[in-house]
Every structure is written in C-alpha cells, then in structure tokens.
C-alpha cells in the first residue's frame, strides 16, 4: 500500500512536468488554428452558381492556357521547352492533365480568375511592382471559367498514386530527396527562399500540423511565400500519406512488432512478480 502511494506521488509529479513541457508548451508554440477548410469558403462561389459547358471549356483552354501549359493526356505538349521556361519565368508551368482531379473545383476556378488571391499571396505580389507568373483571367465570365474547370475534370484520370499526386501538387518546388524526387524548377529566385526538402517533414511537423498547413500555409506561417495550393481533401490525404511512406517508412513495422515486445514484457512483469513473491516469502 505504501509503495503504491509512493508510486502515485512520483507518477503525479512526472505527469505534471510532462504536461508542462509537452502539451502546454506545444499549445503555446503552435496556437490553435481553425480546422482545414476544403470548401475554401473565403473564395467567391463560381462553380456552384453557374452552368458549365465542357466543349466550350476545351475551346477556351486551347485559346488561353496551352501557350504555357502542357496537357499530356490530351497529347498537348508545351509550347516552350522546360529550360527556356525556367530561364524566363523561374518556374516551369505545370502540366494540367490532373488538375481536375486533385484541386477543389471552386478553388481552381478562383485560381484561374485571380491566382494571387486564391493562393493568398497578395503580400508577395501586389500587382503593381511585382507580378505573379500567371496572369489573372478576371476578364472572363464566371461561366466560362467554370466551363474550363469542367473540361479539366472531364479529362483528368480517375485515380493517381500517392506519389503522382505529390509530384503534381508539390514536386515543382519541393525536393523529396529520400525518394529521389527532385523539384523541376528552382524557385529560390521567384519565391525569395528555398522551399525545404520534404523527406522528413512528416516527423518534423507531424500529420496534424500538415493537415492545416497544406490547406492554408498562412495559418501557421504568416507571410510565407508558399501559395495555398487548393488540394481537395482526398488529394491532400494522398500527399500526407506519401510524406509518411517516405519520412516514416517503418511505421507499419513499428506498429506490427510493438504488441509482441510489450506482450513479452507484460509476461516478464508477471513472471518476475511470482519470483519476487517466492523469494521474499522466505525473508518476510
């Protein structure tokens, strides 16, 4: 009984210390932020308030987009080669084949209309002294923009692997050294800083932080040059899954052997208790 009391006292002080240096400290380092918003409610409702026409969207896309962008799964290749694009713009405009699958539709429409606004980068590109690489399409009607989004959705594949989503969504700026993925553009000049390698980001930030960070980087890192990329919920899940597959590749193994080790130690507790009782019955 006395020993249980001592154990209780030690456990209490240990837990208070733990609470102070872990949960409490982290809640102060990372103040609570609103949960991820996959509807991007701050943006204008475009796709929900207008009708769309895939054929028209296709026509508009070929008139407005493919000067810079390729659409590989439609057999449309880029008008400029990669190196020239990088030399001129600092980045290589992304291929649009999968845009309809991985980006939330209304976000995509808003991005076409006002890339800087949808990406929450107004603090970086004021449109007077500094311009974003992609121009606004705010002169287009909402209905036309919606039609292009509908077209992207119609040509998008139905499924991508986690890695493919990562490459399309993140891989133009970020390296993934531990999976030999190299960013296809060096955006240091355009962004003002080098985007970090993401190999260990799942361990350094954790799933919980990444969930809200990818959804809206400004929430955690006010003023960052990373744009809000507008992934829909399932695409973002795939990205985080991929980060985990690379940065925490032994998670499954860890969780698989844990019960055996703990089971063995539980058995040890039992056996050693019996031994202790046996030995001490002679002396006490």
């Amino acid at each position, binding site marked *: 009984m006395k*020993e249980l009391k001592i154990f209780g006292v030690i456990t209490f002080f240990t837990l208070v210390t733990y609470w102070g240096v872990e949960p409490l400290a982290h809640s102060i380092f990372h103040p609570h932020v609103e949960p991820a918003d996959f509807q991007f409610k701050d943006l204008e409702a475009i796709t929900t308030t207008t009708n769309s026409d895939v054929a028209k969207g296709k026509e508009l896309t070929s008139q407005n987009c493919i000067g810079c962008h390729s659409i590989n799964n439609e057999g449309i290749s880029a008008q400029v080669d990669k190196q020239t694009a990088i030399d001129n713009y600092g980045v290589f405009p992304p291929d649009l084949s999968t845009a309809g699958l991985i980006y939330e539709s209304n976000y995509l429409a808003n991005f076409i209309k006002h890339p800087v606004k949808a990406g929450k980068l107004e603090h970086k590109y004021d449109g007077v002294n500094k311009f974003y690489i992609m121009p606004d399409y705010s002169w287009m009607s909402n209905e036309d923009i919606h039609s292009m989004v509908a077209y992207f959705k119609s040509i998008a594949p139905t499924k991508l692997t986690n890695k493919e989503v990562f490459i399309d969504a993140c891989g133009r700026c970020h390296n993934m050294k531990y999976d030999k993925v190299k960013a296809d553009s060096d955006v240091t000049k355009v962004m003002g800083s080098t985007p970090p*390698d993401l190999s260990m980001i799942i361990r350094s930030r954790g799933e919980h932080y990444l969930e809200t960070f990818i959804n809206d980087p400004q929430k955690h890192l006010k003023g960052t040059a990373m744009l809000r990329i507008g992934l829909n919920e399932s695409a973002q899940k795939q990205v985080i899954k991929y980060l985990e597959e690379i940065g925490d590749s032994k998670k499954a193994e860890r969780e698989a052997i844990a019960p055996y080790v703990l089971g063995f130690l539980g058995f040890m507790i039992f056996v050693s208790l019996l031994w202790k009782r046996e030995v001490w019955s002679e002396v006490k």
Partner: protein
Amino acid sequence: MAHFEKARSLGEWFDQRLNTTGFIKVMMTEYWIPKDINFLWAMGMILAFTFKILIISGIFLLMYYKPDVDMAFDSVNYTIMQEVGYGWLFRHIHGVGASLVFLIIYIHMFTGIYYGSYKKGREMIWLSGMLLLILFSAEAFSGYMLPWGQMSYWAAYVITNIFGGIPVIGDELVVWIRGNFYVADSTLTRFFMLHVFLIPIAILGGIAFHFYTLRIPHVNNQKGEEIDFEEEANKYLTGRKKVSKVIPFWPVFMAKDVFVLSVFLFFFFYLTFYHFNFAMDPVNFDPANGLKTPAHIYPEWYFLWSYEVLRGFFFDIGGLKAADIGLVAFGFAQIIFALMPWLDKSPTVAPANQRPYFNAWFWIMIVILIILTIYGKLPPTGTNAWVGFYSSIAFILLFLALPIVTMKEAEKTASSIKPTGGKH
C-alpha cells in the same frame, strides 16, 4: 609458483585461478542490503540496465552513423531510420533511453535527498552520484548534437556560447571548444568523439566507483536506521532470515529489482513504439541550418530547470549585466546539489516526512524545480519572464536557507528529546 591440484570440474578450475566462489559471495550472495526498502531502491539497477541498453543501441547506431556535417543528418534519418534493418528501433530506443535515464536519475537523486542518504558517512556515495549526473549531462548534450538537425545545431550554438561569459578567457574558450569560430564540422566531430569514447569510458569508471562507495557505509533504508550489518548478516546466514534486517543482493534484492525493472521496461518500450516525440524533438528532424534560427530554442526537458535559472535573470541589476548574473546563477545551480551533505546541518538520517522543517523544504524544492522546468521551455516573454525570474531567485534562496532550516530543525529535535531524557 603456487601449488595447484588438478581440478575436478570446470567450476573448480576457474575457482582455483580466479576465486570465483569468493567473488560471487562478496559481490552477490553475501553483499548485504537492508530489508526495509521500497521500490525506489531499485532505481540504481534500473539506471545500470538503461545505461547498458544505451551502450548496446549506441553500438548499432555507431556502425552506420557518419560524423560529418554533410552526411550526419542523412546517415541518421535515411540510412539508419529507413535502410538498415531495425535501425529505426535502435534509434528510438537510444533516444527514448537517453530521456528516461534522466527521469530515473532524478528519481534516484530525490530519493537520496528525501531519505537523507547523503550524510553520516554516505558523502562519497552522494558525490560520486553527482559526478555521474555531470557525466550523463555531458553525454546527453554531446549526443544530441549528432543527428545534426536544427535543434542539434542551435542547442550546440547556445550552450557553447555560455562559456563566452567566463571572464578574460571566455571568447578564446568558445573557439577552443568549437574548434572553429562558429559551430562547424570540427565541433560535430569532436563531440562525436566525446559522445562515443571519452565520456562513456568516464561513465563506466564513475559507475564502478559509485558502486564501490556503497561498500563501507552501506545502502540506507526506509527509516534511516543504523544497522549492524555483521550481526544482521549472521542472523541471516544462520537461518533466521525473517528476523534479520538484511537481505543478500542475490537473489533477494535482485528478485524485487527485476520486477521493478520489468515494469519500467514495459513503460520504456511503450514510449519507444508509440510515444517518442517527447524524447525525439520533431524540430530536430529539420536539417541543421545556421542561417535559419528556429522560432523557439530550448534544451531537452532534463536541462530545462538549470536553463531557466540561466535565463531567469533577464535584466541588469545594479551595474551587473543580466547575462553575467544568469551565468553565476547557472554555475550555482550546477554545483549546489553536490553540496547537500554540508548544507544539511541536521545530524538526523530519516525520511523527510519525519523531519518537520526539512519535509517542507523538500517539497518546495520539488515544486520550484518543476516550475523552472516548465517555464524553461515556454517563451521567456511577459509574465513568463517574471515567473522565471522569481523562481530562479526562489531556487537560490532555498539552498542558501537550507543550513539555517536544518540547524533550527536539529535544535528543535534536540529540545524535544531532552525533557524525557530518552535516547534516540
């Protein structure tokens, strides 16, 4: 040459040459420990075992680790964590073990303080233990640098910088410790050497010495009772085991230890598999970058209390610079526990709950240490800075008051005994 008979068994062969039976008696079966103990008396063996775990896991990590600023991070996070079979397990064990070893060290240490196990002949046990605390701290600090993550780098930067505050030689000393003007490859390589060679060797020696210091004054017991070990051992050996106040190290003491150890290991491996972030700071999974200061720099939890004493003095007082006062206070915090046997003026060896004044002193000390630990991690701004300031002062005053508190207590105890003329 000595005379040797032909041995009749392998055991006898060794016994003739090494006196194994004598050795086992002295070290185990007739090494006497008081019977009146609780599970806190198992902490020493738990520490020895955890240190063994750290050595073994460390050896496996050492086979793949590369002490070079360009390779260190990847050798840990890619080669060890992902490529090598169960490399992640060894790293998690090593990281969690390094943290838990301090939890147990602190429990072990506060057990010693609570039961007064540092006085009346036990001073060397206490001092050798304090030496081990310093060695373990150096070991932890040097090891923390090796993964070469953001916290490795910035902790190394901040801590080596502290030496710059030492008068006259400070600046040169910092350069000498780092091997460069900033924390660089030379710093990493020398701390690698310290971590895997010099300090572990010193710890092994320190542990052996710590065990040896127990031999003459013997282990304390739950009541602080003085025991005639020879007489009690005789009782035990003549079969009066239940009457005897002592038990042999093997198997009786160890039977209890193994049980406590099993419970501890269950907790240890639960953390290793499921709850390791407290010991392996996520920030350290960002590669070291000397141009990018992390938003919050803090040491591991076990250094926080003394770190808070260092930074608790955040403003200049009477012409003294804040950093200098902090450094002096930090130095004070580092050595003051070692002086416990001389700060405690009461001759009574008894658990704190039987000592009126010391009991209060002990629990206030624990609370202040926990406050310092928690505020050592929080950003030192606004109220936090003041909490740090006042608790640092409280910590210092507490130790300055200890001789007075214990002297008063001794007087009180003496006067309460006199009237009856009773003997203690």
